């Protein structure tokens, strides 16, 4: 299959979310899909820009859409905030002719134009729809049966635009996916609650409270890792392991990206999926169902 996508990493995946970047590339490569990074992409505008100026936020974001139209492939944005910002820009321009004219004029000042022909998609949805669970199971080389993930979706991929077509209050796509790959996801009621987002910098007390609560829930449900879809969720929850939550208890619970688990299941090495960047590496191993065992040492050392 020669599916091609334009990859929009966003600022976080080049720094704190480096493991997400590595595992995305590794998984897509293994599955034979081409992921080519958007040439000279800029910041998506994210939540902070929206607070300051509206048209500018749309225009900044739209430059990426305009650049992506050169190849015409769907844009894949792994960070929930980028996914939301790009999607919001596309839909906002489509729904508001006045805004569209203004943004087009702004783009024209930079010699660009956007006809909004490319879709903005989240990798979870791409893997579930374009590849599909049956093909992932077919590609599986290692069992995930030692993993009991708490699947955490967070906010902006479920609402206001659901990336995957399902109940926004109770998404189940990751649970279904990981069950199919042999893992045993736990029931995790706060799966769509907010991790605190950027409040981690501006109002750390409040953000820590939210993140600690999410980790506590996972521990109470006897999960042995939390699986996230967003770099900000991942670092907020991962840092609870270091800074200790509001209750002073440090659970040492690994917080992974869903692409890292998929990667392990289809035979990418722990290094390839960036396991060395997790503050707490998972204690569970992925034994082979066919092929070679993974060098679990890499997994353990972190």
């Amino acid at each position, binding site marked *: 299959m020669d599916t091609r996508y334009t990859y929009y990493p966003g*600022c*976080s995946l*080049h*720094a*704190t*979310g*480096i493991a997400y970047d590595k595992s995305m590339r590794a998984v897509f490569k293994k599955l034979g899909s081409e992921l080519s990074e958007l040439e*000279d992409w*800029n*910041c998506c505008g*994210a*939540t902070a*820009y*929206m*607070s*300051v*100026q*509206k*048209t*500018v936020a*749309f*225009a*900044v974001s739209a*430059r990426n859409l305009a650049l992506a139209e050169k190849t015409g492939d769907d844009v894949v944005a792994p960070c929930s905030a980028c996914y939301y910002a790009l999607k919001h820009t596309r839909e*906002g321009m489509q*729904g*508001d002719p*006045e805004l569209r004219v203004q943004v087009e*004029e*702004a*783009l024209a*000042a*930079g*010699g*660009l134009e956007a006809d909004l022909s490319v879709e903005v998609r989240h990798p979870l949805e791409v893997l579930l729809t374009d590849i599909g669970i049956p093909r992932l199971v077919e590609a599986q080389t290692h069992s995930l049966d030692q993993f009991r993930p708490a699947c955490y979706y967070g*906010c*902006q991929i479920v*609402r*206001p635009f659901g990336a995957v077509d399902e109940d926004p*209050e109770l998404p189940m796509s990751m649970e279904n996916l990981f069950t199919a790959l042999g893992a045993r996801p736990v029931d995790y009621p706060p799966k769509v*609650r*907010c991790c*605190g*987002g*950027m*409040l981690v*910098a*501006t*109002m*750390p007390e409040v*953000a820590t409270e939210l993140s600690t609560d999410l980790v506590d829930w996972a521990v109470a449900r006897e999960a042995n890792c939390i699986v996230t879809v967003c770099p900000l969720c991942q*670092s907020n929850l991962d*840092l609870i392991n*270091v*800074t200790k939550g509001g209750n002073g208890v440090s659970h040492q619970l690994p917080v992974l990206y869903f692409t890292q688990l998929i990667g392990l299941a289809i035979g990418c090495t722990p290094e390839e999926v960036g396991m*060395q*960047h*997790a*503050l707490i590496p998972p204690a569970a191993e992925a034994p082979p169902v066919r092929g070679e065992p993974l060098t679990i040492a890499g997994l353990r050392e*972190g």
Partner: protein
Amino acid sequence: MKTLDPLAGPIAPGVLSKTEQELRTAFLEEIDRIPGGGRLNQCIQCGTCTASCPVSHAMDITPRQVIAMFRAGAIEELLESRTIWLCASCYHCTLRCPAQIQVTDLIYALKRIAIEEGIFPKRFPVHVMSETFTKNVKRYGRNYEVGLLLRYFLRTKPLGLFAQRRAGYALWRHGRIKLRPDKIKNIEQLQKIIAKAETFDLPQEKVAREKVTAAVGYESIGR
């Protein structure tokens, strides 16, 4: 108008202070540009937004009260509240509102007006984050996490930097901190786009306001 005294809203029914009138105008213009923004008058004050909000316990004015206070003509208090800067934009209120009110986007509109008018809660410089962020993007085209946090803390609470040191060290040790900002190649192009777009964010004509005022049914206190 510094207190949260409900009586500090309209001076008398249908009469607003000058600041309040100006802020109201700015807000109505802002919400005119939000799809469905005019639905504000459909709020039934059910409190679903507040109940769904993960940070409402830390807010001085809850999301439901935000709508109520706007209708009561107390935008100045809203702009001075911690609430608008506490909102993490998680969209839970918007998802669940039975009247399909775009609560999150309305809070964004309030943030924009607060920045434009320079009205902020005292000793609570969260807006600095947004402003530093936009400066970063103008300069580099990308957001540089380390630079963003450094500048933010130095401007607001240098001691906060010390409190964050363990987190910073852990991330650095695991190769997750970049020591140099990324700069896009065609930064001139982005700057031209931003400069042009900025011209559209200047205060709009009064005509738009008349339209919205009538549409949301606030004739009595709207002007």
